């Protein structure tokens, strides 16, 4: 009887081991969609960043997700005629594909590539960089990773604990002189933690 029990438990254990089969891998965390990313980044980098973010993130609905809503579009009379209005939800381009895009799309190489490029462009844009530093109240010429880094960190991670920042700071301090506002901002921008819902 004991032997049978052991045997049963053994096989039950084996079947509990998760499979590594590639087709079984489905991500369980959720990443923010293009609207969330666009609003967050525009908030940090200001109005000058709009063309970069629109091009790099907002128009890439197939990578970042969030379908448009054809019903939220309306025409607004202007001096030159009519212009389509409707904010983020309206269908901007490639109409049919845009409104059929999934609500949430997980991480992919395309997304990583788009984030790397957009973040690099954002920190290379002097007005955008200035806006972010001003918003975080960071002095460009007297940058200190302990104080300035924390302020920039809070732009992207406003709700993370003090302890998490302290952990991060220890790693920053290993190469303290390396970090300037541009590199620090780029790092936080590329990181995916703030995009996770």
């Amino acid at each position: 009887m004991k032997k049978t029990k052991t045997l049963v438990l053994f096989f039950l254990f084996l079947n509990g081991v998760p499979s590594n089969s590639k087709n079984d891998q489905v991500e369980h965390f959720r990443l923010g969609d293009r609207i969330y990313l666009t609003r967050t980044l525009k908030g940090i980098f200001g109005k000058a960043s709009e063309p970069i973010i629109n091009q790099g993130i907002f128009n890439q609905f197939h990578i970042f997700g969030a379908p448009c809503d054809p019903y939220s579009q309306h025409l607004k009379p202007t001096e030159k005629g009519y212009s389509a209005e409707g904010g983020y939800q309206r269908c901007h381009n490639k109409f049919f594909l845009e409104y059929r895009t999934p609500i949430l799309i997980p991480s992919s190489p395309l997304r990583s590539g788009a984030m790397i490029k957009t973040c690099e462009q954002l920190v290379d844009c002097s007005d955008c960089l200035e806006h972010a530093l001003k918003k975080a109240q960071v002095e460009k010429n007297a940058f200190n990773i302990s104080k300035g880094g924390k302020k920039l960190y809070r732009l992207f991670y406003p709700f993370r604990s003090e302890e998490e920042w302290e952990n991060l700071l220890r790693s920053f301090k290993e190469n303290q002189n390396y970090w300037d506002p541009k590199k620090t901002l780029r790092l936080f921008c590329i990181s995916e933690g703030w995009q996770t819902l």
Partner: protein
Amino acid sequence: MKRNRRDFLKLNAAFFAFNPVSFLSKHLCDFSSMFCPHDGLSHYVLFNLAGAPQRWSYDLSLQPLAEMPYSPNEMLVTSFADKTFQSSKEISFENKKVKVDKYLMPHLWSLPINENVLPEGKLSSLLDNAIIIRGCRRGIDGHAINNRRIVAPDPTKPSLTGLIADKSDSNLMVGMTGSEYSPTTTQLGAYRSQRGNPISIINKHAYNYFHELFDNFINEGSSAQAQDEITEAILKKQELMNPSALKNRTKAKKIIALNLNKLKGEYFQRLEKYQKIIKSCQMDRTLEGLTNQRIPGLERERLKKGSGQENFSYFFMKYFFIAEPDIRDTLENMQLLGLAQQFALTEFLLIQNLSNCISIDLPQPENLGFTEGYRLSHFNTKKNNFNKQAKLEPIHYWHEKKFRFDSHNHGLIPHHLYTNIFYYVFTNCLIELRKTLESESPDLFKRSLFHITSEFDREPRYDLMGSEHGYNGQTNTFISGSIKKLNIIGNIYVKSKSSFFPNSGTWGEGAPIKELNGRSLVYGNIATSVSEVMGVPSPTPKDPSLLKLKDGELVTKITELKNINNS
């Protein structure tokens, strides 16, 4: 109570006793590929003939063996007659065939390979690596639904292309539009991945497909392109990235590290090569049975003498009747929008191992050089003659100058000429792709599966004014280096049962197969076949596969090939 518990334990023990086999096979597979059943082929390229052109002069052999019964139809032709046409009245056709291995294939395969591809050889050399499955019944009519079902036979499950993209560790799932249909109504719109891999759909009007696809990985003038090690270390250490994001970031960085700006040159070289091949193919005036003789358009004299006996329908082109002195001249500026870019990008992605799943909607011939013609409104279809108002009129304002693959209203001449010239161009591009894969990357062609298909085949019209949807027949052609010789399977009816017309001949309507217990082929069989060959779960597991990999060779599981006489 105790007894029940004991029984339960016994049952459990018996049930799980069988499980070590599945457990071990599942987990040992991760240690070594020796223990895996098979990984399947690695690269899948879907060539979707969206619009469903006729296939009977290309890969659908209606009478593959001479002794098979066959019912003719005037539209089921494969070649212009081998004589000089002094006037449009003399134009006639033949149903020529060429023997490839043991099968009789349409005449097109006997044409020479374009000199820009290979100095010598015939198109039929491609068939050495082909398996053709004919007579797959789609059951319902409609372009959009049948095209989407090519990759999503069960719409509740991930698509075939999604499953294949999920299997891969390579980076991109790429789709290219080309047809007249919106991507949402073709297989591109039916793409769905289980793991959420997005598809990059490149629009046929994009000026530069390379830039369209890799735009996210090229950041010209950026000082930070090569991400430094210190930044990387922090990203890894502090869990600012979750594990799968890090993996994807590594993949993205690999693509960036390729320095695509430099590789752009390589892409343009490939593009130039395909552009040259396509231009040369469409300008070739030596193609026997296709472009090697003048094809006169409808002459004015015939209109006056018009009687019910004349074949005016030969010249019908949707809204007008062709009246060019030589219809071949319309090919001069013919455009196959994006075809060269589609092949160049496919080749680039396969060679660089950037994608394992590419699906392409192929373009139809456009910008045909029609100058003048006779209006349809001046033609009396019942009496088969023109009225007195009929006169030669310029065509430019009448309608678009394109040949639709969905050729309901295209007479026999445009039907034959434009589909075959497209097939000639397309096959040459395929042979070039095969040649490049074989020469630039060992085994790559062997590990690749090209799938040529469409929504359905076509049923010829009795009045020679085009063809209708043959949705109870569909041809699927597979090309791979793992296929060692031509094989054709699938039964078709000699006389169509559920046709639009009573006498449409043998056009490819699917018939029951004994080896499938008397069932006809359905697309589920094709989907399972692709899944089995590619080593992914089938979206239609109840329909058995028709293909298998045996010692690295791709072979058919059934052998039945019949024309079933149902008269």
